């Protein structure tokens, strides 16, 4: 009985032009900037087990378990620019992605030999995958070498923040903004705690350091880049348009953050030191 849906899908695929199927829901210009309402995932190596049924898949919902991704690049068009997220390695036990029907068919055609194992719930591994998605979410993610950015930091203009460890109850990247010719991404977070926190301004340099700094209320920052060698998240999603990156239960090890602006509703500091540097 399980072969029937597979046969149906194969017949459906054969009736479509592969080029049309690969088109996806987004339109791409020659410079690679995404035009439209979708975001793009480029994955160097993807291993996953499909757990969605044929009906769900045909309507653009891809449910997966035991997902690992290597060299992942996500490009999210937001506000006045594109937020880029690069991750060396990602694992998640469960992830769901909403894509267009054409995107599903495009993926199926490109990986036709994996179609039956995929539909039978076997683990498959693909390389150099590009997926144009409308939305996605995942649980209990673990990421190595995560870089989120809209541009290169400028040490003569941007404020640098580092910590040994940073935990955030909830975080949302709202949009990319352009101010004084510079791009930054507006990030709202709540319940932020930093251990061995250091903040440094450009010259004339001023350093603020504290073994513990916590912001129980809302923190608003306009970031140029956020890097962490190791990140875990209880939940993460990229919402349907307008795309927002949301995460809860976030823990970043040794984060390095470059910001153009910082606004914290309250900041509690223990053993704070402020000094010129």
């Amino acid at each position, binding site marked *: 009985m399980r072969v029937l849906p597979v046969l149906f899908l194969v017949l459906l695929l054969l009736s479509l032009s592969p080029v049309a199927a690969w088109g996806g829901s987004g339109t791409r210009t020659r410079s690679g900037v995404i035009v439209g309402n979708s975001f793009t995932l480029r994955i160097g190596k993807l291993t996953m087990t499909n757990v969605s049924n044929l009906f769900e898949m045909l309507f653009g919902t891809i449910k997966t378990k035991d997902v690992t991704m290597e060299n992942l690049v996500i490009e999210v068009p937001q506000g006045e620019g594109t937020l880029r997220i690069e991750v060396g390695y990602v694992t998640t036990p469960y992830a769901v992605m909403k894509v267009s029907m054409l995107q599903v068919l495009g993926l199926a055609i490109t990986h036709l030999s994996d179609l039956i194992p995929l539909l039978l719930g076997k683990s498959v591994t693909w390389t150099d995958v590009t997926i144009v998605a409308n939305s996605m979410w995942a649980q209990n993610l673990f990421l190595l070498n995560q870089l989120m950015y809209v541009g290169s930091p400028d040490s003569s203009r941007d*404020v640098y923040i580092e910590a040994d460890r940073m935990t955030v109850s909830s975080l949302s990247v709202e949009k990319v903004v352009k101010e004084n010719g510079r791009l930054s991404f507006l990030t709202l977070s709540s319940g932020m705690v930093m251990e061995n926190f250091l*903040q440094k*301004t*450009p010259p*004339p*340099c*001023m350093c*603020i350091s504290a073994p513990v700094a916590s912001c129980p209320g809302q923190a608003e920052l306009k970031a140029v880049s956020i890097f962490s060698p190791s990140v875990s998240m209880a939940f993460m999603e990229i919402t349907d348009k307008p795309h927002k990156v949301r995460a809860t239960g976030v823990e970043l090890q040794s984060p390095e953050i470059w*910001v*153009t*602006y*910082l*606004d*914290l*509703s*309250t*900041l*509690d*500091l*223990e*053993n*704070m*030191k*402020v*000094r*010129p*540097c």
Partner: protein
Amino acid sequence: MLRKLLLPAALFLFFAGVMAQTLPSPAPLRVSLLFFENLEQYAENSGGALVLVTNLGRMQCPSGQLLEGLPFLIQMDYAEGRGVQMVAENVESQAGRMENLRMEWDPVKQRWVIRADGGWMENVYAPVYRVVLGTLRYENLRVVLY
């Protein structure tokens, strides 16, 4: 007679430091509890050295504080001031809270500024070069010359 001369002498020495063009040796300032409003903090070059400037719209120290430096010691049980400017080597605090803290670029003065609407700091320590007070209300002022 000697006691009557102590206060003017101490204040003269203190404000001589304030008015001096080059930075004097910093004097340790210790405050056990400080409440503040409209904090502004930035680094700037002064007298050839990089210093930390802290401006407070209003400050209140409900318990003992101390400005200690050779050859004087100034102690007050209670102090309340407005238009406070403190130029220091650095500022340390054992614990504190800053409300509505912003870190922003001041386009007029071309420097980064920390601003907070209010907050408090506990066990503040700062080696200060100078302190300027627009107004000061105090209780039980004691000035001691070594």
